[in-house]
């Protein structure tokens, strides 16, 4: 078994046995090699996203966990948020430059839930229109400048 498979199996076990609040792995979505996951997340109580349900798509390469997973919102409900483009791409530094093998699917999900929770106003990123029209399908091929860490 490769270290990617070993690691993902352990993460899956931990997340199905003891899932964090508002996060659950959609086990029907898993491919046999575990290279693609869908995770259901719920907006946290008393935030702008309370009661809303979203889906995160994860894709892992064989270099995981040394290479970050590709993570984006998928499905019919994409949250309206200043760091989430309407095509599901998320501007979050731990998904690219600040990724570390010490992070996991669980910690990524919790960071995204907390990113939603700290939002003060539901609005699209200022450059959403041009980004969505021209960007690559793979959000990991976008290099963002992470100027704003407040939201």
């Amino acid at each position, binding site marked *: 078994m490769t*270290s990617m498979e*070993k*690691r993902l199996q*352990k*993460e899956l076990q931990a997340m199905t046995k003891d899932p964090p609040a508002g996060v659950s792995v959609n086990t029907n979505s898993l491919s046999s090699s575990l290279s693609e996951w869908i995770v259901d997340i719920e907006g946290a109580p008393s935030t702008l996203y309370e009661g809303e349900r979203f889906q995160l798509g994860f894709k892992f390469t064989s*270099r995981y*966990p*040394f*290479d970050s997973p590709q993570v984006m919102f998928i499905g019919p409900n994409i949250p309206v948020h200043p760091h989430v483009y309407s095509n599901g791409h998320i501007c979050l530094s731990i998904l690219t430059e*600040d990724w*570390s*093998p*010490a992070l996991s699917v669980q910690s990524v999900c919790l960071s995204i839930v907390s990113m939603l929770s700290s939002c003060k106003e539901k609005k699209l990123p200022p*450059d959403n229109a*041009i*980004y969505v029209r*021209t*960007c*690559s399908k*793979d959000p990991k*091929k*976008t*290099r963002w*400048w992470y100027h704003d860490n407040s939201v």
Partner: protein
Amino acid sequence: MASNSLSNQGLEGIFDDHCGSNTICFAVKFSSNRSYVVDISAGDSIKDLKAVVARKAGLCADDIHFVLAGQRLQDCKSLQSCGVGSHTTLHAFCRPIGNVSKASPKTEQDYGSDVDHFNYNGEEDSGICKECICSEVNFAEQRCSGSRLKESQDVEGIQDINSYSCEMSRPLGYNRFFVYCKLCDGIRPAKLRLVCKGCCNGAFLVDRGPSNWQDISSTTSITGRCTVEKCDCKTPRFYLRCFERHEGDVDGTAVALKHVNMNRRRVDCIACGDVVSPVLIFPCEVGHVICLACFRQYCSVSLNERRFTEHERHGYTLPCPAGCPESYIEESHHFLLLGKENYERYKNFGAEEYVLQNGGMLCPAPGCGMGLFPENGTRLIKCGECQFESCKDCKKEYHTGSCHEVESIILNGSTNIGISDEMAQRACWEMQSMNLIEETTKSCPNCRSKTERNGGCMHMVCSRCECEWCWICVKPWTRDCMAQHWFG
């Protein structure tokens, strides 16, 4: 104490079963440079060995003392339990017991047990030797932890290491340190050896056994005394050897790996989550642990993506994968784990990085790549290796006139000198590949590295000099680039 003595006996039991009563052959060396080759059963005691050596050397058996890795070997111990095997060199010195005490009364107290053995032979013969147990507490503890790991079922060792688990439960620092052995071509447990720093004599007695890397690398941590009469040096010099018995001259074939250690606290690998031993422990505050298989993968992914960094003290190296501050692999030999071919690549990349970071350039002649440090004020760079003369600014063959003019001459081909068909064919290929490179790449505006863009946005980051630049403007990346043509 009781539990220590139990585990001691338990392990010796394992050892006896494993080794049987093989005859071993090794050298006993006196500080006077006399040495004797001894054939003896591995199960024989140190006392038996003394009798054999006394006969050969014409000395009184009671006056002979053996030293291995800084520890004096006690009469009641068997050779195998002391870790003596074929090809071991056992150091010896000869001194009447009374003189030993006089020579250094303070130290002798620590080793008092030894002197006592001579006086209470009866107790020794009974097979119960309290003194031995007392003076070996340090090592007994070490053996305990070794055996716990070995016996616990859920510890999956790296296979080649695991097969040595019996050997690794040996005393005298066997399982504390690891080396990369060039003869075995892999990580091996290390034998710890030492000599007197002053006179290089191997019969040097240490006040305590080393327990960590600091102990063996610092010159102040552990003291002792040399058994050579006129030498009053108090400092030992430690070195590590592969525990495998390699014949002949093995100097320089084993390099110490300071970050590789037994996983005593049974910490999960940061990457795959398995609990294995040995592991590599990063020097960060929390001591992140990575298994050797994942470390290999971490290195090879980082090498392929040129993510190693040039560190002013530790050279071309990798940080703790969790990004902990100031936590780097501090010794480049750990990258031998990449395998021969990739280790060569690692060394080449490291040398290139060093040259580029220190204001040098690489010879642009095909297949050369020699590191060159241009002198100020001249555009002409001559490679000392291949003699190729290049232009510092455009990194092409040296030319007169501006770099731009020359580029268009090369690409448009405007010479008509007669050449052979083969040369013409070859030149044609080279011209085609040069054209292809020109068409598909752009040069980093900072270091001129040819860069290919394989999709994604226009925001480029040079993998060589880390300059952030715009694919469209071929200039450093700005807010305007992001607003106007982030994706073209």
